């Protein structure tokens, strides 16, 4: 769990990994350079460095990001949630950008996501086309890229999650922020870096209204336990 100044979901991700998924978790301060024992790096949600400029634009220069990039280049699993997704885009680890929501307002509400692909280290606990309930909480969540790049993403099977309705229909009405092709989560072309706009960390326990998000964390555990090939 990387803690940037202004991160505020580091605690939530830590809780899910430690108490729900029951795997050892550590906080990494953004000025650190060493995380030799980590299998997965999570960039949590929040407002890193205040996000007074473009979201994630300063965080990508945080000292730890150099190591995060190296780690990803070596094939390590990296996942960015919400603000973490924005930072991964700014750092060039994921293609595209996250623009201001279509409504130009911060939006907090439950959203449904359709699993587009389940042979990845992040989604192997789900069925393809499974509908998941998670929480959206963002001001800049509109996924954007050039038409050519979008085509490439789609062709390469890099879109992992799409906004949909409760029945799994991908509709304009189910798109909370104007994201192109209803894209909610993507993976890089090598398949080891994922960004997701809604919060699986807030939807990992039934008492909070949904436990669907825990599957992402369990997927990664399964992959390290050698239970799946992906």
């Amino acid at each position: 769990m990387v803690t940037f100044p202004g991160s505020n979901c580091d605690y939530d991700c830590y809780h899910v990994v430690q108490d729900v998924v029951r795997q050892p978790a550590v906080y990494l301060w953004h000025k650190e350079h060493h995380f030799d024992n980590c299998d997965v790096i999570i960039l949590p949600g929040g407002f890193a460095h205040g996000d007074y400029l473009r979201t994630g634009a300063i965080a990508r220069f945080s000292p730890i990001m150099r190591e995060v990039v190296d780690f990803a280049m070596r094939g390590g699993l990296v996942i960015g949630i919400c603000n973490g997704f924005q930072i991964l885009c700014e750092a060039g680890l994921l293609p595209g950008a996250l623009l201001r929501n279509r409504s130009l307002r911060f939006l907090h509400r439950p959203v449904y996501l359709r699993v587009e692909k389940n042979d990845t280290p992040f989604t192997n606990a789900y069925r393809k086309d499974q509908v998941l309930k998670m929480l959206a909480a963002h001001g800049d969540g509109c996924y954007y890229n050039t038409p050519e790049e979008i085509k490439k993403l789609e062709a390469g099977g890099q879109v992992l999650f799409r906004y949909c309705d409760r029945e799994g229909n991908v509709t304009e009405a189910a798109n909370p922020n104007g994201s192109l092709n209803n894209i909610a989560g993507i993976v890089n072309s090598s398949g080891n870096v994922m960004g997701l706009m809604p919060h699986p960390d807030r939807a990992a326990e039934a008492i909070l209204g949904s436990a669907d998000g825990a599957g992402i964390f369990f997927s990664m555990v399964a992959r390290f336990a050698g239970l799946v090939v992906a």
Partner: protein
Amino acid sequence: MKEPEVNIALAKKLGLTEEEYQKIQGFLGRMPTYTELGIYAVMWSEHCSYKNSIALLKTLPREGSALVAKAGEENAGAVVLDEERVIVFKIESHNHPSAVEPYQGAATGVGGILRDVFTMGARPIAALNSLRFGNLGDPRVRYLLDGVVRGISDYGNSFGVPTVAGEVYFEDCYTGNPLVNAMAVGLAKRGRLVRAIATGVGNPVFIVGSSTGRDGIHGASFASKEITDESEEDRPSVQIGDPFTEKLLLEASLEIIKKDLIVGMQDMGAAGLTCSTSEMAAKGKAGIEIDLDKVPLREKGMTPYEIMLSESQERMLVIGKKGREVEIREVFEKWDLNCVQIGEVTDTGRVVVKFLGRVAADIPAESLVLGGGAPVYNPPRKKPTYLENGVKSVKTPDPPKDLGKVLLDLLASPNIASKRWVFQQYDSTVRTNTVFGPGYDAALLRIRGSKKGIAVKTDCNARYCYLDPRRGAAIAVCEAARNVVAVGAKPMAITNCLNFGNPGDPEVYWTFAEAIAGMGEACRALETPVTGGNVSFYNEDPTRMVYPTPVIGMLGILDDIDKATSSHFQTEGNWVYLVGETKPETGGSEYMKVLTGQVAGVVPTLDLKTEKKIQAFVLNQISAGIMESCHDVSDGGLGVALAEMCIGNQERKFGFALEAKPTLRPDLFLFSESQSRFVVEIKPQLTYKLEEAVKKENIPLLKLGTVGGTEFMFSPHFHLSIEEFSNAYFNSIETKIG
């Protein structure tokens, strides 16, 4: 810069009276300097001294076995949660700043109340608010609403505290002077609460956080006068918020507390450095000497007067332990925050302020503060003429022909309609403890590491308070308690935010005194003491004053979070009952307002014994595990309560067949706002338990009908499709805002 000459004219300009000016000279034994006069003016302003309210506030019940900190003693009240932990909570107004600069006004209101909580060593776990505006048809009102909501949203979201509950009302009396009350709730270790105190001669005094600028000078004085056409010129008195710095300040503050490096800490809110130094010194029966040349400044050429009165945000005054200075600095360095020693604690009992080598102020700390030298007034009271002139005698409206249409109108009334447009802009789930967020009777948070949960809610029906301040305030307490009970929690204590007009007006002061009396009666009856809060007077614009609006922030504790009860229907086929008695009471109701445009009549009766008995009964049944859902009956009466239970959960809406045969006129049965009532949903096979229990305790119970179908049906009066009344309820505010 040459300082102005100190004389009575200047004193008056700063808001002091002639007597107060004399009193200052008495305390000092000489003429005050310009800086000293400014310090007295701001410390003796209504906002800091509570000079017109403290005598009455002291009549409120302020003790209870569960309370750790007594009202007014610390920055916020504290209630015992379990053996290891306490809940710290407080509500505060930011009305005047929000009236001229809604975005920053509301944002810094949130920032200020969060600091009040974490300065005590508690990590904020929830934020709430209570907002009041004029009519949504007025474009300036929409501008104010938009700015206030964005301000709360941006500050709370970025800081990382979930905004879990609140209320929003629209009434013409708030057109020029909206009410923006912000509440924060925090969790702290029981033995680790930090006090706002300066003790230990030689202990270092640090200023930490943001640097000091010219923003917010006279903010406290600005809050202590009415809104006028010239108020726009006070825009510079509004502070600017920086939630990112606040978040860093939170982490650094909690770190120095955890490492046991300090003896006391106070946030710099109203009156900034002035208030924090004098209050901390007075409380510790000590003195503080500071050197303003050391204060990190944002701009050049600031005078001692400006530095002492600046209300720049995200700053704290920290009294460190001698010998731990280096460790304290290291913590703030890690978080990239200023941390500068500007002085030390002395034994003189005086606040001494040095600037460029000379003494700019030298004042006995005690003489400045509430409970010390600050004046205490008992303004005259007179029953308002509007109450003498029969606002109470109003005819009950004739029964309308189409009750279904009236219900739709009520559901679409902005005061009742869903506030989804507002609360979707708030992050209500960060920190992953929110079990119930906005849209429930009260917000409910789990407390990790225990079975317990806490329920919180803000409430006030200001129309009742306008028509009958005493009963209205008592109802506000009871309704807040009812909301907390409905989710399954036991009401524990309140914080209050008392929004009134000019206390110099005897009619206003009468309503204030009555409201305090009513609040005290209800708090005593329900055993929910007052842990603290805030008074905001001078809430008026040139044409009108606001309704007396004593907002209650209630804290409840739930021993077993698994017993949490939803406010929305759960299962088709379940039976629904009304607990409590319905009388023909439409005075001050939303029904009366929607039908006749009037705010008039006799406020619904309230019997505190009955209220307490019914709350205890409902809580017992929830603990016994027989309730599937539970909702209090308030604005809009039974009809609205049932509709809300049908559609409150947007993902699972239900129809309902209202089969009861009322003895009252059907419109009064549906829309009366009689107090002390709950609607409850029970599995058919368990209803006998409820029916037995009410007999034993002699509590009125009426079977209303069955959950299910695709309509809200009350034959022969109406059949409303779920879609129809759902649209009225959910789309009304969005449509009006456009």
